[in-house]
């Protein structure tokens, strides 16, 4: 009865929307054709019918977390480890198994791979992307090579940016805090006729590790335009670049702590999507990325031979890709996705891999079928066939089945195979100090033809959804077998060296590992004002290499909770990672971290504003790499205005 008595109470408030003057209402408004907005590729698959475990980091989670940098968001994903080796070397892995060059996670921003073909890993700080422009991050936990190809071995991260005229108007923001935090953001989003666009200018500065010379400043420009000439076609054009000025080197080792890195990453991308119906569309994606880093250090000096070459660790690499994809639903029960892609990677580093430019092409065909013969069963079969310049011709298949016996409960069983190709640096490394014609010291060499690493995985998933209580639970049990792990071998004799400063290193396929584990993520929407996400994971590794055995923390925990008090909103983040080791590095002790965020929203006429205070690591100093590198407590204030 209360509902009935309240039923007539409609509240009315006037706001402004992006809208052009229009013709008066007419009957044609009821019949005119409309573009398919929520086309198949825009709609995310419901997690209980997906072939893999997926964690979605939403905008509200991004805001509540208080994180300023993209890789930190992955602390919110069960089983992920995030470590800042230095302010310009953030590294991320899923369930261990990684050195600080995390090479088995594929990362795509709006479909464009930002995986670095030269080193492997992802230069997170060098992605031209402001956190504010992210719509959502979808993380596939486990292999996703059937969809994303080589290097999507341990996990696959898909970052989607907001559409061009999302939140139209001006946005200006600034953050100031300890640890030299100085951030600025200016964005304009607008629309005219069939066009919508957005331009973001952003600058970030911080000094990440206590007592380390690792201040970093990034300046980025990112632009996106969308053109919808008719109801079927949509063309998205994107371009952006980052200029990074980083103290110290962007690679893990350096020869002088006075070294600085001038980093540049730029990209252009075009995406043409034609929607044939709500279930059927094809798209063409073309992009080009260039990355370069200038890392000059003071020349090394040998008493007998004088100045040694090289005096830098400069490198560049580029990637061009063309991808065609076609989605269809031939019958109500069957959905298909087909893609064909060609890529060309080029990399150069005279210091690390000889004077030549190394390059290679890759061709891919993939198909996936999703067949739901009955509502409670979904069968997935997918495979990616690739011809890769180093990996050769490889097939990465995946089979999965979802069973939804009763509403709210679903089970998933999946098996897959994935490959990780050697990187340019692993296959072509030739790092030596010379003096004129003399070889003084060979540090790195790649005399062997490397095989791809291979991971075979099996997983069991359970998902629970309770709408009334606002509960979502996702449990995953997994077993992985990783073969042909590439790492440094024992010393390799090189003739003619004048000085031997330690071992000469070569890359080879050396180890294998087996991994078991379990994890869960829980989301609880406790009414309108409160939500909590909690995840934990447990892992064990058996391997013939102790570093791999130690590489995953036995336990991790991640908690983010947010409450809206009315005028104020507050959130708390707690992250705990057990003892672990980044392969080839010293042990990282168990650590935990507590972050708090308090914010207040204001409204002055058409202007919205948000004032936030974020305190990070308030429990004290902690280390997430080695005990010399401490992340000390810090706080910043940020103010954002939208008008």
């Amino acid at each position, binding site marked *: 009865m209360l509902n009935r008595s309240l039923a007539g109470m409609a509240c009315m408030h006037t706001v402004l929307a*992006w809208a052009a003057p229009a013709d008066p209402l007419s009957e044609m408004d009821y019949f005119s054709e409309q573009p398919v907005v*929520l086309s198949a590729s825009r709609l995310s698959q419901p997690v209980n019918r997906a072939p893999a475990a997926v964690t979605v980091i939403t905008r509200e989670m991004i805001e509540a977390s208080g994180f300023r940098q993209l890789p930190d968001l992955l602390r919110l994903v069960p089983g992920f480890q995030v470590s800042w080796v230095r302010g310009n070397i953030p590294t991320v892995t899923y369930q261990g198994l990684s050195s600080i060059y995390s090479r088995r996670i594929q990362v795509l921003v709006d479909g464009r791979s930002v995986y670095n073909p030269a080193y492997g890993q992802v230069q997170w700080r060098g992605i031209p992307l402001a956190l504010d422009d992210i719509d959502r991050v979808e993380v596939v936990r486990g292999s996703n090579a059937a969809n994303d190809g080589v290097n999507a071995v341990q996990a696959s991260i898909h970052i989607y940016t907001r559409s061009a005229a999302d939140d139209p108007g001006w946005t200006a923001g600034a953050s100031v805090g300890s640890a030299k935090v100085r951030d600025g953001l200016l964005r304009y989003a607008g629309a005219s006729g069939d066009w919508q666009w957005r331009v973001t200018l952003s600058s970030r500065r911080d000094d990440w590790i206590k007592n380390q010379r690792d201040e970093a400043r990034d300046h980025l420009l990112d632009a996106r335009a969308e053109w919808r000439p008719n109801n079927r076609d949509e063309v998205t054009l994107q371009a952006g670049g980052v200029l990074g000025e980083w103290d110290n080197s962007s690679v893990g080792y350096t020869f002088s702590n006075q070294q600085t890195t001038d980093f540049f990453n730029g990209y252009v991308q075009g995406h043409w999507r034609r929607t044939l119906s709500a279930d059927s569309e094809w798209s063409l994606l073309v992009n080009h990325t260039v990355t370069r880093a200038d890392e000059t250090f003071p020349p090394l000096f040998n008493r007998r031979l004088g100045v040694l070459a090289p005096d830098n660790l400069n490198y560049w690499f580029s990637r061009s890709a063309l991808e065609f994809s076609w989605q269809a639903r031939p019958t109500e029960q069957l959905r298909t996705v087909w893609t064909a892609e060609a890529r060309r990677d080029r990399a150069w580093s005279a210091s690390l891999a000889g004077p030549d430019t190394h390059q290679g092409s890759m061709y891919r065909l993939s198909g996936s079928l999703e067949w739901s013969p009955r509502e409670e069963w979904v069968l997935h079969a997918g495979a990616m066939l690739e011809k890769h310049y180093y990996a050769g011709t490889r097939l990465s298949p995946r089979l999965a089945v979802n069973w939804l016996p009763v509403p709210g409960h679903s089970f998933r069983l999946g098996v897959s195979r994935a490959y990780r190709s050697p990187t340019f640096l692993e296959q072509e490394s030739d790092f030596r100090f010379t003096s004129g014609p003399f070889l003084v010291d060979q540090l790195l060499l790649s005399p062997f033809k490397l095989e791809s690493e291979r991971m075979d995985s099996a997983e069991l998933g359970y998902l629970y959804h309770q709408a009334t209580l606002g509960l979502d639970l996702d449990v995953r049990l997994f077993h992985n077998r990783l073969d042909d792990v590439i790492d440094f071998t024992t010393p390799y004799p090189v003739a003619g060296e004048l000085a031997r400063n330690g071992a000469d290193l070569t890359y080879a396929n050396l180890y294998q590992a087996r991994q078991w584990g379990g994890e869960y993520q829980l989301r609880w929407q406790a009414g309108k004002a409160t939500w909590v996400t909690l995840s934990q994971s447990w892992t064990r590794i058996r391997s013939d290499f102790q570093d791999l055995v130690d590489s995953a923390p036995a336990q991790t925990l991640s908690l983010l909770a947010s409450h809206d008090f009315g005028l104020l909103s507050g959130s708390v983040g707690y992250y705990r990672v057990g003892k672990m080791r980044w392969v080839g590095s010293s042990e990282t002790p168990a650590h935990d971290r507590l972050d708090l965020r308090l914010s207040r929203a204001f409204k002055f006429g058409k202007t919205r504003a948000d004032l936030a205070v974020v305190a990070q690591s308030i429990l004290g100093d902690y280390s997430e790499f080695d005990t010399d590198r401490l992340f000390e407590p810090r706080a910043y204030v940020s103010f954002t205005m939208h008008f």
Partner: protein
Amino acid sequence: MIGLLRHHLARLSFVFLACGVLCAGLARAAPVVNVLVAEPAGIYQETANSLTQALGREGWKVAVTSPGRNSANGADLTVAIGTKALETALAQPGRPVLSLLVPRLIYERLASGQQQVSALYLDQPLTRQLRLLGLALPGMKKAGVPLGPSSQGLQAALQSAAKASGIQVNSALINQGSDLYATLNDMAEDSQAFLLLPDPVAAQRSVLQNFFLQTYRLKKPVLAYSEPLVQSGALLALYSTPAQLGEEAAAWIRESWSNGAFRLGEPRYPKRFTIGVNRTVARSLDIALPSEAALSRQLEAMP
């Protein structure tokens, strides 16, 4: 000779008289209906075809004309299909007019207070729309309704529909300018779904794009008012097709003809309707929807 002529003339006049009486009687049995279409094509022609076929089965004579060539001045009833046709028909007052394919707001603006004019609206009753949301989405308590300069005239009607359906509404005005996102976010806070009503500003193409993207991001399904919109991204649509409207109008016209005159009565919403469902959106939002037929049956059974 003259007598014979007079006799013939008398017989002839009787025949004429008889013919006249007969013709008048026939005219009363099947009146002349003029169907005035805004354009002799598309949805207007489709509605007209459905109407003329239904009336034709009863042996009624129907002439179809368009505003430029409206010559059927002697018709007993003008069925105006489309806004332009309604305007033309209203320009010649004094004859019964039935408006078809015109939304309620436009009809009321053009024809309010006019005698002998009625309408079978193009739009669906708001109560039916809210009830459909209630049937399709368990736990449905409140719907967000973005309104524009035209549709804000429906405020009062929305409130009474909310009372009748037991589903509350939370409406906000969308104007020229910029803040669709904040509006939708505000409305989404305590609404389980959105009801989209036609409006040249709030539901124009450039707004719809962002409207569907944002409501999807908020995981809130949308009930819209047309078949194309269900393709575009709405979970559900409730509408009447031109064929349904034509047939329903034909039945209404037949019923309202008695004793040589049309008594149309009050304007009304269509009784016949179609429910459109976007199963792809339903799957993605993890909403288990009953079949269209089941929803229709339940909705029809409601008072």
